[in-house]
């Protein structure tokens, strides 16, 4: 079990937080990551054929999150998912925290396939090529999704009006 322990030390915290940003709920994130690590460990032979551990592990994590979103969360009472949203509405007036909350709210409104690429790119620090491996799509698709996700985030009311977040959160490109 020493390898699994090493995997957990290396990737568990960031995997949980990645899943948390995708799913919006800590308990769901823990469940998904537990499922992902057990699945990854069970099929560890497949790792030998992969070039890198990190995108491979994230692929399993993303699949586990997708399964959770597809199979469990839609059937659950909406109130169960309210925990994450409740925590967003705090009285913290710090602009940095406010921006973080606004981004999370906007992230929650993104479709899952766009949310995943944004989280993998800007939180997990995966390159576009690594994201392509993690979500089993072409790098071009990843690039296009990232642009679309950033465009939608910029247009989201929580980030567009700038009432709580910094005005510089949005940039204009050609």
């Amino acid at each position, binding site marked *: *079990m020493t390898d*699994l*322990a090493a995997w*957990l*030390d290396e990737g*568990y*915290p960031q995997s*949980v*937080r*990645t899943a*948390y*940003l995708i799913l919006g709920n*800590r*308990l769901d*994130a*823990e*469940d998904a990551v*537990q499922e992902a*690590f*057990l*699945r*990854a*460990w*069970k*099929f560890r*032979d*497949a790792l030998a*054929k992969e070039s890198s551990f990190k995108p*491979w592990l994230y692929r*399993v994590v993303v*699949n586990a999150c997708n399964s959770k979103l597809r199979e469990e969360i839609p059937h659950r009472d909406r109130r169960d998912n309210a925990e994450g949203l409740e*925590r967003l509405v705090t009285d913290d007036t710090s602009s*940095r925290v406010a*921006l*973080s*909350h*606004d*981004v*999370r709210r906007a*992230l929650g409104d993104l479709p899952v396939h766009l949310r995943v690429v*944004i*989280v993998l790119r*800007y*939180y997990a620090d995966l390159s576009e090529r690594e994201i392509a491996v993690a979500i*089993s799509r072409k790098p071009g698709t990843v690039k296009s999704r990232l*642009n679309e996700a*950033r*465009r939608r*985030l*910029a*247009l989201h009311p929580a*980030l567009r009006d700038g009432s709580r977040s*910094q005005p*510089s*959160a*949005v*940039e*204009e*490109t*050609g």
Partner: protein
Amino acid sequence: MTLIDEEVLRDALRDAATECEVSDLAKATILEIADVEEAAPRRRFVPDAVREPGRARTLLAVAAVLVLVTAIAVPLLRGESPSPANRSATPTTVHGGVAFTVTPSAPSEGALAPSPEKALSGTGLAVSTSQKIESTGTVDLTVARGRVESTFTKLTALATQLRGLVSSTEANSHNRSSGSFASGTIVLQVPEPSFARFVAEVEHVGRATSVITSSNDVTGQYVDLQARIAALDASLAQYLKIMTRATTISGILAVQNQINTIQTEIEQDQGQLKVLANETTYASLTVNVTEAEQHHASTKRSGFGAAWHDSLNGFVAGFEWLVRLAGPAFFGLLMLGALYEIVKYGRRAIRRRRI
């Protein structure tokens, strides 16, 4: 185009992620579950070879498709329909005459007592480890007018003599004023070892027009179920041990989920085992009893009447042919659809298992 700033997004996501506190206990739970799963027998639905890359996987997939296509095509080409009788060991039926079917795997006659039994540890079920044969049959009998009820009585007496029982009866009267039944069906169950003898005796109660029997050896299925239940029991014991050590809610929920799944599987398997045990203890014979029809003097047709009659018969025969053809054609389409879905699902499963 308006886009959100990358650096701002990166910082905001990092801040948002810090809201999620990571527990070390969850890691310990994962290690324990992985430990248990390593110890438990692997229940794989796809063999290892399927996950092998390249040629082996392709060959396996091609072989699977070939077997499936052959299984569908052969009965269709031979004009057989996959009825329950055809699926079993050696069914034979002949219309218009008497057909006999040999039941090769049936045990010798005369042995009325069931096989010695022994208890399966842990399951609470008394199961036999000897050969398990599942036998069923149908006999069509024609009897003289007004003899349907008395035939039922004779058949019941025969079954009772062999320590059998009547499972169900149904009688129909086409002319209620006559006060007697014109046809009926009786389903009898006799101990499996006496089945062949019972069928032979039933044939002599009336004029047998059709006899269909089939035997199916389910010993392998029976032993598999026993082994599966034992393995699941072992896994369940391991998970119960983990449950006592789980400390976090998510850990407890995860282990409880596994326990529920295993318990459900055990219950399903035990149910199947009970059904198999019942089916192999008693063989079932359905006897259709019909009164002999009165022969009407046939009026000889000729000329235009005969031609019209032949024409009608031809039309009906053609229509019947179309209806007969529709069944296999529909079945073939259904199988093609199922095959497509299986291949699609298999490819997805393989893709998932590769990660």
